[in-house]
């Protein structure tokens, strides 16, 4: 008997177990719903970005048109930055319902702007989205347990083991074939919805293959865990209890324990400190001699050191210099803040080694560009853009050029 034939026979037997087929069909339906909802969310986000980008252009035009000078123009003109959903974002929403993916900035001190939160509904964030990564992390293992836990014990409890030994000859091969059929069923239920979703959107095959590999590894890891228990000489009920206990431990208890541990190991920096420091520096400048701002500013921006000194109580170049000083003074704390977030993320990687649900969420979010690193990278792009923006205004401010809309046609664009 060739292998294919045997697998075919096992598949036939499996399909006739109605409960297992129903379980796989349900898994497939849930994965499809998740893909559909993820797709709808991505479209909504794309439409929102497109709409706000158009609004942003007209809004900036009216802001610039009404400004009397470059200082006022830089003060009034906001620039939209955005972080579009990637081609795989429909599988894992990740940080996109807690960290902003659109942010408007202007040439003022960035530390006072970059930590703004979007108006996400916290009650929705609390639960999290029903995305594909969620199905793979939490539901897939439960379904895998349902279709595989009693593979051996059910036969034993029905007294069929001697019969199987007699008819199959090599029982071990028989178990492998049964496992293979179930793994295949699980993979089909999970992967078909994702591939269909990906093909409709036009996701690249490479990304879909990588995601498939992540799903494959998840299924294999859980299969291995389930087999360890299902080959024990225990009753079906005991095996199912133990497996549920394992799932509960790795899906909920370990991640929560890990969180407590990480909070302890890496307490992090309270963001409010950055905001307070930046604000003290920026506002303190009003009461200091102009020199106290301009001198350190010229150290980091020597190209403007030779321009006319500020003698009047107020001048825009002094104003933007102390905005920049605010950022410079807060830079160290702000960097430490981001470093703490990165270290927490790294520590989470260690938790992922012990917890497949954490691992699969991280892997899919990484692939979808919706993880912590991706939101920090977006923040970095905003920083670079802000740098371009303020440096664009400096020549007009420091050379005290007369205001003209013509000069603003080369305003940096966020791309």
């Amino acid at each position, binding site marked *: 008997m060739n292998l294919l034939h045997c697998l075919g026979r096992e598949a036939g037997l499996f399909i006739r177990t109605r409960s297992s087929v129903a379980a796989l069909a349900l898994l497939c339906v849930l994965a499809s719903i998740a893909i559909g909802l993820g797709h709808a969310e991505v479209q909504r986000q794309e439409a929102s970005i497109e709409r706000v980008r158009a609004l942003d252009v007209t809004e900036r035009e009216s802001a610039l048109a009404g400004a009397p000078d470059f200082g006022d123009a830089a003060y009034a003109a906001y620039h939209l930055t955005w972080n579009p959903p990637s081609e795989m974002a429909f599988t894992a929403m990740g940080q996109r319902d807690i960290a902003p993916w659109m942010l408007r900035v202007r040439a003022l001190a960035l530390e006072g702007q970059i930590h703004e939160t979007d108006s996400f509904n916290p009650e929705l964030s609390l639960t999290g*989205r029903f995305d594909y990564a969620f199905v793979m992390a939490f539901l897939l293992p439960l379904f895998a347990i349902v279709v595989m836990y009693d593979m051996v014990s059910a036969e034993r409890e029905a007294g069929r083991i001697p019969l199987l030994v007699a008819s199959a000859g090599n029982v071990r091969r028989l178990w492998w074939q049964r496992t293979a059929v179930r793994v295949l069923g699980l993979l089909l239920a999970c992967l078909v919805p994702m591939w269909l979703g990906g093909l409709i959107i036009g996701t690249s095959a490479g990304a879909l293959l990588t995601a498939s590999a992540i799903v494959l590894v998840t299924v294999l890891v859980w299969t291995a865990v389930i087999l360890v228990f299902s080959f024990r000489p225990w009753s079906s009920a005991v095996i199912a209890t133990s497996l549920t206990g394992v799932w509960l431990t790795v899906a909920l208890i370990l991640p929560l324990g890990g969180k407590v541990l990480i909070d302890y190991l890496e307490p992090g920096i309270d963001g409010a400190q950055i905001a307070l420091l930046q604000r003290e520096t920026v506002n303190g400048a*009003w009461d200091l001699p102009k020199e106290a701002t301009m001198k350190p500013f010229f150290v980091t921006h020597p190209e403007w050191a030779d321009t006319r000194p500020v003698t009047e109580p107020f001048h825009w170049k002094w104003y933007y210099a102390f905005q920049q000083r605010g950022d410079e003074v807060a830079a160290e704390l702000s960097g430490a803040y981001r470093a703490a977030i990165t270290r927490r993320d790294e520590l989470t990687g260690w938790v992922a080694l012990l917890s497949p649900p*954490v691992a699969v969420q991280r892997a899919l979010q990484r692939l979808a560009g919706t993880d912590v690193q991706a939101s920090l990278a977006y923040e970095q792009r905003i920083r670079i853009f802000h740098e371009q923006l303020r440096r664009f205004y400096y020549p007009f401010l420091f050379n005290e050029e007369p205001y003209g809309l013509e000069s603003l046609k080369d305003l940096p664009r966020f791309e």
Partner: protein
Amino acid sequence: MSQAMKIAAGEWTHLLRTRLAVLTLGLLFALVAIAAINSSAQLRAEAAERLQYQQQADEAYRAQPDRHPHRMVHYGHYVFRTPAPLAVIDPGVDAFTGRSIFLEGHRRNTAAFSEARETSVLTRFGSVSPAFTLQVLVPLLMILIGFSSVARERERGILLQLLAQGTRGAALVQGKAIALAGVAALALLPLFLSALWLGPQTPTEALPLLALLAGHTVYLAFWVVLIVAVSALAGRARTALIVLIGIWAMLTVLVPRLATDVAATTLPAPNQAEVDIRLQEELRSVGDSHNINDPGFQSFQQQVLAQYGVASIDELPVNYRGLVSLQGEAESSAVMDRLTAEQHSLQRDQAGIVKLFALLSPYIAVRHLSMTSAGTDLRNHQQFLDAAEAHRFALIQGLNTLHAEELDYVDDSARSRDAEAEQRTRVSSEFWTTLQQFDFAGTGAAERVRSALPLLLALFAWLSASALLLRAGARKVQAL
């Protein structure tokens, strides 16, 4: 001893003799206790930290030197949210909302720096709190302990013996339920202990605390009854287990997420950037209050001149620039308040959709009951934002009033060019020491309990439904 109590005692003897059950019981108790201890330690640290930040911000404000009042408008102030006393039991949405707000003139900022953004993906797995353990983890552990309570006896043929000896089916399932209720009581014990500890510290919270206890008790009672009912109805123990895990996954994991997506899809919320742009467009029609010649303030000028009976603004007994600031802030705040109210009401509608799913999942009912009672729900967060806004508006208008009453119009107009005039426009730093303290008490206890009551009724409905199932189970046992 009644039949039911005998059965219950027998079940406990069996549980204590089973290694797996003892292990699960130990795990269950440890989890609830650890969650309670961790949560209270963390919260106390956080409350102390917030208080310290608030004091620091207050002191910094009071210590500002002599200044032009409009400088203070831009210097602004910070307020920090201190956790609600009952957040020890249920932190609710706290991890997902910003913890501090910068209050300044011309703008209504949102709360910044949420815990969820600063920590890792692990925050999304649930909170280490008594509420989360009791609502999600404990039911699953109770399933592992109780799924076989009746089914096991049936498989081993003991059920027939018991019936032959005259045990009634109803007494049997009641006994099993009483035994499992003991497990639930064990899980609830830390909650009751912390209530005994919290109650005297915060007497005003007694009523919400009671609602919390009642909600969790009814919720766990629902699970006790459901577990025994399914165990009685299922032919085999493993069927009972699979069915129960399926129900648990659906009620506590699947339905809440689906509810979230349904809410977000049926009522899509605009992005903050979009709201801000709309706001800016509307504010442009209000005018820029830094510029007294802004067309937006022409009619205001006529009105002021008429009111004081003078021909030009330099004849006014008050500083016209300050009046424009007052007027501009009032007009722009009205626009901002309207747009924020729209956003808040949309978010509450979204939460309302989620709450409707309490009809599909008792977990949603108990979660909302718990958050509402603890004062850690969306509503309370919005009230914090509104309270901070009221504080901001009072602070800024106080400064603008100084601007109008304490400053000379001519000096104020020349201050950007004339250093001496600039010196004269600085008001005494003594004014800054009158800063009002920001006190946010949160939603009143009575109101919280009132909005929690319908959810308690929903939980009772779930309990009744499972009781009907248990009766069917008892009949099935009797019919053997």
